[in-house]
Each structure stands twice: as C-alpha cells, then as structure tokens.
C-alpha cells in the first residue's frame, strides 16, 4: 500500500483496520452485488474480512444467509452466483485501485458514518471520492427534482443551491440532468460544497453530458456511491440510490417533480427517515410541478423562500428575505411582465394582452432581457 493511501486511511477511526475497508470494497465490487445482498452478508459477518473469507472458503453458510435475506432469486441462481464470487474480486487489485484513486471506504459501523443507524436499510458501505469530504460533517440539504425541468425550475434550483451554499450547507443531489445538476452548479457557483450521490461506480460518468460537473464536484465536494467500480447505469439502481440522498440530507427540498419520478421517491424515503421535506409550489398547468404540488397536498412544507430551508434546519428563527431585488423597468415593460402573469409567453401573447405595437413590445422585451426579468428559452419568454 502506498504512502498516500495509508495517509488517507489514517483519517479513519483507529478501531477499524484498513484491511477491513479493503475487504468491504472487495465485497461491494463482487459481480451482481446489490445493497440487499451486502446487507445480508454484513448481518451474518459484521467484519467484512470474515464475510470475504467465508466466500473464499466455499462456506455453505453464505448460500443460507443470502437465501434467508433475499428470496427473489432462485436457489440455482444463487449457487451459480456464489460460485462466481469465490473466484472474483482480487484483494490486491482492489487495494491498488483504492490507493490510486484516493477512495475512502466508509463502513456503517464507523462513528462518523454520515447516515445514522436508525435509518432503515442504510447502506453498509459507502465509497467516497473528492477533495471536499468535510461536506459530510456539516449541515446537508438535498435538492432534488425532475430531469425534464422548466427554465423556471432550473433557475430556482440554482438559486437555492447558491443560497444554501452561502449559508454553509452542503448541497446533496443525484448529478442528473435538470434540477439535480442545476442545484450542484448553484452551490459550486459560490464555491460551496456539493455532494453528488451516483447510482453507478465512482469511475463511471453518467450522464456523459455532466462530465465537467463531475470534475467540479470532485474538486469542491465529493462523490458518493454504494456500488463497486465499473458499475454501469442501470434503471433499477437509481430508485435505490435515492434512499442515500434522503439519508445523507438533514432536509430534502423538491424543486420541480413530475407525478411519477425519482424525486418523489426521495421525498418518500425522507419522510420515512423523519427528515423534513419542503416542496416548491408550482402552477397546476406545469406538468413538472405536479409532483411538488402533490407532496404539498400530502403535507410537505411549502417552500416560498430560500430561508424556509434554514428554518427547517433550525438555523434561523424564521426571518424572510426576498429571492433577489427586482430591477426597475419602464412602464410598458412592466405591463409586458404583468401580462406574462408569471408564466412563459410568446411575443404574440404579450402583443394580444397589452395591445402595444410590435415595435414597442420588441423594445420592452429587450429591456426585460437586459435586466434579467425575462429569459428566452425553448421559443418562449420566461419571467423570473
């Protein structure tokens, strides 16, 4: 083991040895390893080294333990799986990768494990990479939402990420396109901490479009995964991953969510784990806000102002500050903004509603764009 790696390892509490962490990483990286199977193994052998030794030694107990905990797989499949396990997963190779990448292995038994013990089905092992691991010590807020976000939602997520990072919170999310990415970017804008929880291996960048964001999060925060290196994106892993986002956060904020979607799963897990859930209300016309509105109807706290999150965190007694001061515009421009009614509109709609000549509308729209009160996106004008 190289000097850098042992330097990293020394940060762990002294009662857990490095060997145990490497063993845990080997277990996580076994083929077709799932969180549930890992949980079963750790229940039988609390020390990862014992579990690994049992697998290597063809211990029939392994099969019994797996069968007892996870019944969805047939007996013959398990026999084949355990046989594969005995011959895969190299100790040395895993130790080398951990050292080379500077990956930390957090075990559920650690005192500073970021998810407390009462959380049901909490991950047994978390692999963490990045230069801002201290993000997991302070207050953490998850900002989640749909991938198919509207420009309004993206802007809100980014502003919220920025606001919370300035308030000293780490922003936890799933690195996805849409709200997730916008929230991370908001936090990084002000050099705050971002925690990206991924459903793939830490060496896989998914979605590819976010490769720059992945690099930024590594530098100013950390990436968290419970899957072994090389795990490719798989639809079944994302909902399971969402429980880690809920578990890592002190408060979960849903910015825009569709009725069915990962963000609602995160919110449900958060309620299960007794975390406050805040949802940003939206227009009933906005399909991307329907999930939030449904959460509100089910009793989530409405998020009307970023400081509501701080109230939920108990960081402030409840003073309200507005989103951002409004810019001053001319009377006609104000008429155009009012004609939007807070919702996106076309130039034609503004012309019909205000009755102004097209030339004046063009001038007003340009003025509002300059002052940031209107934004052009997807062929519409979006008021902020």
């Amino acid at each position, binding site marked *: 083991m190289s000097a850098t790696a042992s330097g990293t390892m020394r940060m762990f509490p002294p009662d857990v040895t490095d060997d145990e962490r490497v063993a845990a990483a080997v277990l996580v990286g076994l083929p077709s390893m799932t969180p549930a199977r890992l949980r079963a193994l750790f229940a039988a052998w609390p020390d990862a080294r014992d579990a690994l030794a049992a697998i290597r030694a063809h211990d029939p107990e392994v099969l019994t333990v797996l069968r007892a905990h996870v019944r969805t797989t047939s007996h013959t499949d398990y026999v084949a799986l355990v046989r594969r396990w005995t011959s895969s997963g190299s100790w040395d190779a895993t130790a080398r990768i951990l050292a080379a990448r500077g990956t930390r292995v957090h075990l559920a038994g650690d005192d500073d494990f970021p998810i407390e013990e009462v959380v049901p089905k909490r991950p047994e092992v978390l692999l963490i990479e990045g230069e801002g691991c201290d993000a997991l010590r302070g207050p953490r807020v998850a900002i989640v939402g749909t991938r198919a976000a509207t420009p309004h939602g993206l802007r809100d997520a980014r502003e919220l990420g920025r606001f919370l990072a300035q308030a000293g919170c780490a922003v936890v999310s799933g690195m996805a396109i849409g709200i997730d990415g916008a929230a991370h970017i908001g936090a990084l804008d002000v050099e705050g901490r971002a925690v990206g929880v991924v459903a793939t291996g830490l060496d896989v960048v998914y979605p590819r479009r976010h490769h720059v964001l992945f690099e930024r999060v590594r530098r100013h925060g950390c990436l968290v995964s419970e899957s072994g290196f090389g795990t490719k994106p798989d639809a079944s892993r994302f909902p399971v991953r969402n429980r880690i986002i809920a578990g890592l956060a002190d408060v979960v904020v849903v910015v825009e969510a569709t009725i069915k979607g990962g963000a609602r799963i995160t919110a449900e897990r958060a309620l299960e784990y007794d975390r406050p859930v805040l949802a940003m209300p939206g227009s009933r016309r906005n399909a991307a806000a329907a999930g939030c509105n449904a959460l509100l109807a089910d009793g989530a706290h409405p998020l009307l102002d970023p400081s509501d999150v701080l109230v939920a965190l108990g960081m402030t007694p409840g003073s309200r500050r507005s989103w951002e001061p409004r810019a001053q515009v001319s009377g006609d421009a104000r008429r155009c903004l009012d004609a939007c009614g807070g919702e996106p*509109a*076309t130039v*034609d709609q503004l012309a*019909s509603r205000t009755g102004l000549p097209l030339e004046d509308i063009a001038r007003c729209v340009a003025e509002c*764009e300059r002052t940031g009160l209107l934004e052009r996106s997807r*062929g*519409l004008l979006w008021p902020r």
Partner: protein
Amino acid sequence: MLASVWSATLLGVEGRLVAVEVHVSNGLPAYNVVGLPDAAGRESRERVRAAMLSSELEWPLRRLTVNLAPGGLRKTGAGFELAVALGLLLASAELPTDCLESTGVLGELGLDGSIRPVHGTIALVDAFRHAGLQRVIVPAANAPEASLVTDITVLPARTLGELRACLKAELPWPEVDTSDVVFAADSDPDDDESLDLSDVRGLRLAREALEVAVAGGHHLLMVGPPGVGKTMLARRITTILPPLDPEAALDVTRIHSVAGDLASGRLVTRAPFRAPHHTASTAALVGGGSGRPTPGEVSLATHGILFLDELGEFSPATLDALRQPLEERAVRISRQSSALTFPADFLLVACSNPCPCGEPTDRCRCDPARLARYRRRLSAPLLDRFDVRMSVSPPESNDVAGESSAVVRERVRAAVDRQRARYAGRRWQRNGALPAGPLRREVPLTGDAVDAWREIIRRRALTGRGAAAIRRVARTLADLDDTARVTAGHLGRAEQLREDVP
C-alpha cells in the same frame, strides 16, 4: 427508302432535338427502333401500326428501321410515334416530300389514329425554335401550351387521318384556341376563394412573419403545439403572394409541363404552393427517380412556396437533401450518362411541433433525452437556412381579426418592387437571397440603429449567421414600411422574428 422527321425529347426541363429516321427496305417484315429508346419507344410498333390501319393508311409489309438520332442520347416517352408514322408516310410517298420541311413533330398515337398529348410541350417546342425550325405539329390538346412559345407556328393535330389531309392541303389546319391560355389569377380553378388572412384572429407577430417571409423571400419556420393555427396561417400564404411576372410564369409552366401536372395546358400565373406529405421520399422531394429524371417538389415549387408541415416527421436524410437546393436554388442530378439541373428557387415554409408530446412548451412532459433526439432530427445547417423562426401560440380570447389578404398583398407587392429596383443588376433580387458578404454594404445602419444592432448581438449571443438573418429581415421590414433607412425599431422587430426554436 429513307425519310427523316424532326422531333424532340426531354432532358431535365430542357428539350433536345431528335431526328426520327425511318428506313424502309426489302426483307422479312420487321419493325426495329434503335437509338436508345425506353420501353415506351420500343412498344411503339403496335400503336403506330394500329393507328395507321385505323386511319385507312397502308402498313408496309417490309423491313422497317426507325433510328432516333443522336444515338447516344437516351430518349424517353412515346412522343416520337407521330413522327414515325409521318416518316413512314413520307417514305412510302403518301405525303409530298417537302411537306415536313422545317417542321417539328410531337405526339403519341392512339390505336384509333387519334393524337394524344405529351409532357413538357413548352420545353420541346422551345427546343425547335432554338434550332430555327419554323413550324411545329403538336397534339391539339397541347396546342394552347405550345402557343406560349413565340416565333414558331403551331399546327394542331387531332387525328392521323386529318393531319395527313392537312399536310396534303386537302383540309385547312384547325384553329388554335388561345382564348384561355393566359387567364386572370381569380379564374384559377384551384383558387380557394374562401381563404383570407382576415380569418386569423390575433397572432400579430405570426402574421408579420408571414408577410416578411413572402415579401423578402425569407425561409420561415413556425413552431408551436398542434392546433394553434400554424397550418391555417401557412395555407393563407398563397393569398398574399403577388402574381408571377410573365418570365416566371413561363418558367413555372415549363416545369409543371415537364412533370406532367399542368392542369388544362394553360399558363400558370399563380405562384405554386406545394405541400408534400412527410412520408415523401427524397426523390419525390428533390427530384430524380428511376428512369427519366423528373422534377421533384422543390422544382415544382419554383417561384412559389414549398410547405413542409410536421418538419420533424420528415426523414433526416430527406431534409438534408434540401440543403443543396436551398443553397444553390437549383437541383443537380447526376446520372451515369448525364448531369441535369432542375431549377429550385422556392420559399420554404415549415411547421413543427416543439416536442414529440405535442403539449405546449410550458406543459411539456418529454424527458430531455427524447427531446434532444427529436431536435437532432432537424440539423443545425438546415435550421440555419430559416431567416425567420417563431413560436406560434393559441389566440387570446380578446383577439380580433387582422388585416385582409388584399391589404397585405398590396404591401408585399410594393416591397418586392422596391427590392427589384434596388437590386437591379445584382445576382440576387430579394433580401432573403442577400449573401452575408455584401450585407454590410447593402443594408447600412446609421445612428441609433448601430447601437441597437450591437446590443442585440451581445444580448442574444448571436452567431454570424443569426446576426445576418436579423439584418436581412430588418431590411425587409423597412421595405414593407416603405422606408429607405433601417431603424432601431426595424432591428428590434426583426429580432423577435428570430427565436431559438425548437
């Protein structure tokens, strides 16, 4: 015995002179056609023979050889049959030897001796005129069309028997009925009088987009959810098109004649409106096809509108094939033996949904990957060709009907005249065709317009192409306002006509 008669075949939209040589010799009775005829040419034997027998003319039981010269040119269609029949009559001395002197012959024969019309009469007759021929015998049904070509005498022929009598001066030639060749726009049977722009409520920017597109020749893309009136607007674009000038009318008539869809063989004076369905093949859209290359929709839309509804549903390969004609205003079709050029100088008007789900943009439920896939169907180079792009939204409840088509048409006509006068002697006649190079010189900006121009480019982060499009459109807006100077107001309005859609 040998006889030679002039006829012509089509090559693209041009006619080529063909000498039909008929040789009658002793030997076993036979009939052979040489000189690269197509299947229709080879089948001519039965039609020529039956037509001659029906017309009580003798079919020589001898060895007949028909040669279509020049031998290297591929000939298409059955339009040589009349020439073959007349050649046989000459060879058998049934007609005086000099009666087809300086005369072109076109026509397909029916079994009863009747003379059937052919495609592309104008182009073919034009070829005769260029070759210096003085007379042309055409099927009676094609005579009005043929008479559009000046400086050549058109002799209509109804049946083979009658034609023989006319050629022998036993009967007078029938009159060519030219009374309805050139007709006023309002008598067009295709004209749907019920359409008018005043049917459209509100949508002031969309109406302006339509007007600008037609006046300046700017390609137009309208994006909006289904049912907001994109197609309704586009259909009314014909009502504000100025009528074709005589030269353009002849061009359009010639192309449609070659394609064989010239209704009643008259001069087309209305700008064509072509709306191919999105299942159209690439060959149907840009031309070509197997056998004789035929003009596609882009050529048929020359001097008029090519309307592509549901642009995103066309196959990406077909759409990419549009780029070359849009750039060069012509279609080049290369074949093993020849390379043809069809004109394709059209105004492209296209509609598209903003996304596959078809909901309004702010209610769209499409996930980003699906949306990205949908948008990729429209390649950036194609989208760049649209000077005017806009989002169409449903009318508001308080909207009232706008100006009628007649008012708009007058403004468009004046704007077109202004451009013609300004661009006299240039390679381009419309603002839409103005290349980026001379744009700065042709559309000068002064005073506050310069600042407005810079501000727009900065705020919208425009590319060179985007900026050029706005400047061209601003010029057209100024032409519609009948002003020489492009003002900041024009630029601002032009900017609204350049949305980042879809």
